[in-house]
């Protein structure tokens, strides 16, 4: 019989049960040691030192960095530890912009909470006011370096979970900062605006770019008919803002709350999720039956952070992205095109608000592709947190609100539309639709095997499955985070795996784990929200998007055939390449001389990997050999946003793609030398 291994914590014997560090063990014992930099899903950093404990024979250590050993005797509350913690807080506060009352994070700030918990009433080290500029460059996020406590949570979530690494530490000692490369703003670098950095930030250093004021203005404008759409993930999370358990499903409360703050009509994004499924399934079956694998696997395109990621990092897969707009933008499209007519409202007086669990949806709504005549299809995007703020601002008692139904015609949806909020949900919805469309015989009773696809459920990073649909083997992968998406792409590229359809959601858990959701949003919370959405789905009479009678009616009335011309013009879009970082080119000549022929060779990632440096050298050689150095302004540049044709060369303003080493002589003779001889 094995003896239970234990650690003594404040005199209490606590069994070791696979805890990865002493901090987890202490917390299991019911002692909530404070931390700023510890997140169970990120690597251990050990920077904030708030979780210090005293261990016999070891002294004072940060408990997050210590493995629990049998027989350890640990104290968590001594006078010395108390002084250390309080001093750390005072030092952090001295370097922190303490204008709490006007801070977006007021009331939800970890630093504020711990300062209160430890009774810090005086900061002995004064107040530093660095006055660093605040970055409001993106529609999604606001970065205020004056509030950063250098815990590195954002650096690790961006680097470890999303595997992008937009943010990192820079400089050292008292000059240390966290931010994008070269102190650039977020809009000028490869940030996909998923906002996971904001969701782990303990202070107000990275927050959500608020659209609350714009929405109030529209609500209070008597001319405006304000219509809202509500994403699936909101209904299982908004309650958390008002003291309910995660996963408390309350769609009727969300509708009632929006109505009570003055929104005229409330629709369901699940309805346009159904529409997306119908279009996306048709697109998928078309690609699958085309006989060519050129545009397979089909990638989902509902997640705007993922779309931006493909545009920046994997432009060779742009054609694989489903051309279907996301449910948010499908709603925007049908609302702007048809809803005004239905309601008898001038299109310009229709104000379309989205309630989304997501910060990247703000970026998506602002994309040029989704505007007509300069007016975006979706006027403003509120996150779950912002909606909660508006409800609180009115003073309405959320719990006393009666429940209310979604409005017609965009208020009825199926279970397939609801599970869009979960990782694996879009794949499952498409599988349900494909199973229906390919089924040899239609039955009134739908077999469970055509409705529930357990293979794609769960919170694993990469989920793979082969599903038999009416005799067709469909190979699919579901990526749960951008880091997981990078792994799926690696498997495709190495030939390790072949897929027909790939679903990617950038945030862990899918939209239910979006950065606009209430805090905290850790694994346990995400599990509960996920289950709640599956429960909501199970309760639906209709669980397949094709069965949605209002979707059918929309096609009959306005959109014509599924995948047809009218549907295409309203519901589909295309995406382009996008450079990762704004900046200078590598010049070889300092003076700007008129009359020089401008020749730029792209050395951005795609072109570089396709051998553009060899092209550059080849051109340098030829230019020098022919004595044209003073007539050609040759330089290396970063990204013409033509990555799908890499490597690219720009000569006198026109770009030539797919240049190979064999082409250099021709390019030089015909396009450079010939022009100069003229």
């Amino acid at each position, binding site marked *: 019989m094995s003896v239970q291994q234990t650690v003594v914590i404040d005199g209490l014997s606590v069994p070791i049960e696979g805890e990865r560090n002493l901090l987890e063990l202490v917390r299991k014992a019911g002692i909530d040691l404070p931390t700023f930099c510890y997140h169970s899903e990120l690597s251990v950093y050990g920077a904030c030192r708030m979780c210090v404990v005293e261990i016999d024979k070891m002294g004072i250590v940060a408990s997050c960095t210590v493995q629990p050993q049998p027989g350890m005797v640990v104290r968590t509350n001594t006078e010395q530890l108390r002084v250390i913690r309080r001093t750390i807080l005072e030092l952090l506060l001295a370097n922190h912009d303490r204008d709490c009352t006007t801070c977006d994070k007021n009331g939800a700030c970890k630093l504020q909470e711990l300062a209160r918990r430890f009774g810090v009433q005086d900061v002995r080290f004064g107040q530093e006011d660095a006055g660093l500029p605040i970055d409001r460059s993106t529609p999604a996020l606001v970065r205020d370096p004056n509030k950063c406590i250098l815990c590195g949570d954002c650096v690790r979530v961006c*680097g470890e979970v999303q595997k*992008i*690494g*937009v*943010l*990192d*530490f*820079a*400089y*050292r000692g008292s000059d240390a900062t966290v*931010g*994008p*490369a*070269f102190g650039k703003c977020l809009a000028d*670098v490869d940030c996909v605006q998923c906002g996971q950095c904001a969701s782990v930030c303990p202070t107000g250093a990275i927050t959500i770019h608020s659209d609350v004021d714009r929405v109030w203005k529209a609500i209070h404008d008597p001319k405006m008919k304000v219509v809202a759409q509500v994403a699936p993930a909101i209904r299982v999370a908004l309650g958390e803002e008002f003291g309910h358990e995660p996963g408390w499903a309350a769609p009727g409360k969300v509708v009632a709350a929006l109505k009570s703050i003055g929104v005229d009509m409330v629709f369901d994004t699940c309805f346009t999720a159904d529409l997306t499924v119908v279009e996306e399934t048709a697109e998928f079956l078309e690609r699958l039956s085309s006989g060519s694998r050129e545009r397979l696997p089909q990638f989902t395109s509902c997640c705007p952070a993922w779309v931006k990621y493909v545009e920046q990092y994997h432009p060779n897969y742009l054609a694989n992205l489903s051309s279907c707009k996301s449910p948010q933008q499908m709603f925007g499209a049908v609302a702007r095109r048809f809803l005004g007519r239905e309601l008898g409202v001038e299109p310009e007086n229709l104000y379309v608000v989205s309630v989304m669990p997501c910060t990247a949806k703000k970026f998506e709504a602002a994309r040029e592709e989704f505007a007509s005549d300069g007016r975006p299809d979706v006027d403003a995007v509120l996150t779950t947190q912002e909606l909660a703020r508006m409800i609180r601002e009115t003073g309405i008692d959320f719990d006393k609100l009666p429940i209310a139904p979604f409005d017609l015609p965009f208020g009825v949806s199926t279970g397939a539309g609801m599970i869009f909020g979960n990782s694996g949900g879009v794949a499952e919805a498409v599988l349900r639709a494909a199973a229906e469309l390919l089924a040899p015989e239609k039955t009134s009773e739908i077999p469970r095997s055509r409705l529930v696809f357990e293979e794609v459920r769960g919170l694993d990073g990469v989920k793979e499955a082969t599903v038999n649909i009416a005799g067709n083997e469909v190979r699919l992968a579901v990526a749960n985070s951008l880091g997981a998406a990078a792994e799926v792409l690696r498997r495709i590229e190495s030939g390790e795996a072949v897929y027909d359809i790939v679903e990617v959601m950038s945030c862990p858990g899918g939209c239910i784990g979006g950065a606009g959701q209430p805090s905290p949003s850790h694994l346990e919370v995400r599990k509960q929200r996920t289950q709640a959405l599956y429960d909501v789905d199970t309760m639906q009479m209709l669980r397949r998007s094709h069965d949605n009678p209002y979707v059918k009616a929309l096609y009959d009335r306005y959109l014509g055939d599924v995948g047809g011309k009218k549907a295409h013009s309203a519901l589909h879009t295309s995406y382009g390449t996008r450079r*990762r*970082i704004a*900046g*200078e*080119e*590598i*010049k*070889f*000549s*300092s003076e700007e001389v008129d009359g020089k022929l401008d020749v730029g060779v792209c*050395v*951005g*990632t795609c072109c*570089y990997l396709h051998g553009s*440096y060899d092209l550059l*050298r080849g051109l*340098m050689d030829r230019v*020098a050999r022919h004595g044209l*150095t*003073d007539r050609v302004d*040759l330089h*290396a540049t*970063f990204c013409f946003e033509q990555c799908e044709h890499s490597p690219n060369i720009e000569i006198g303003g026109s770009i030539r793609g797919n240049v190979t080493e064999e082409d250099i002589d021709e390019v030089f003779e015909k396009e450079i030398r010939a022009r100069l001889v003229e």
Partner: protein
Amino acid sequence: MTPVEAAQRKFERVNEIIEEHGREQSALIPILQEVQAEYRYLPEEILTYIATAMGLSVATVFGVATFYAQFSLSPKGKYVVRVCDGTACHVRHSMRVYEAIRSKLNLRDGRFTTPDMMFTVETVACLGACGVAPAMVINDEVYGKMTPEAACAIIDTLLNRDGEN
């Protein structure tokens, strides 16, 4: 070599340096050191290029380049003058030497490099030459037992030498 050829040669060197060291993350610091030796600083576009070539995030490369005092992201002068302000030099009035050089070269406010890109004047925490405090080093040459007058005379010598060339 024309300036254009020299600039192209430098960029070719960057590529050679990366090839020599390989693309493992651990090669980043030696690569940055050698690239800085070519350019006398680390230009932003070259750092972006190095990140691209090594498959690293640009923010990470920027983080490393700003962490170490040996790297500079702004162009330095032909002569880099480092006046030691370690304890031994400090108590022997190294700051008077530093201020004398700065005022001679007309460096005010936040400027450390002369507009003609001839001189960069900085302080350094310790050169390990405490026996000859106060010390300063210009490029690779150490000068000991400095006074404001002696330091200015050395700067004059360098100015004259360059004037003759």
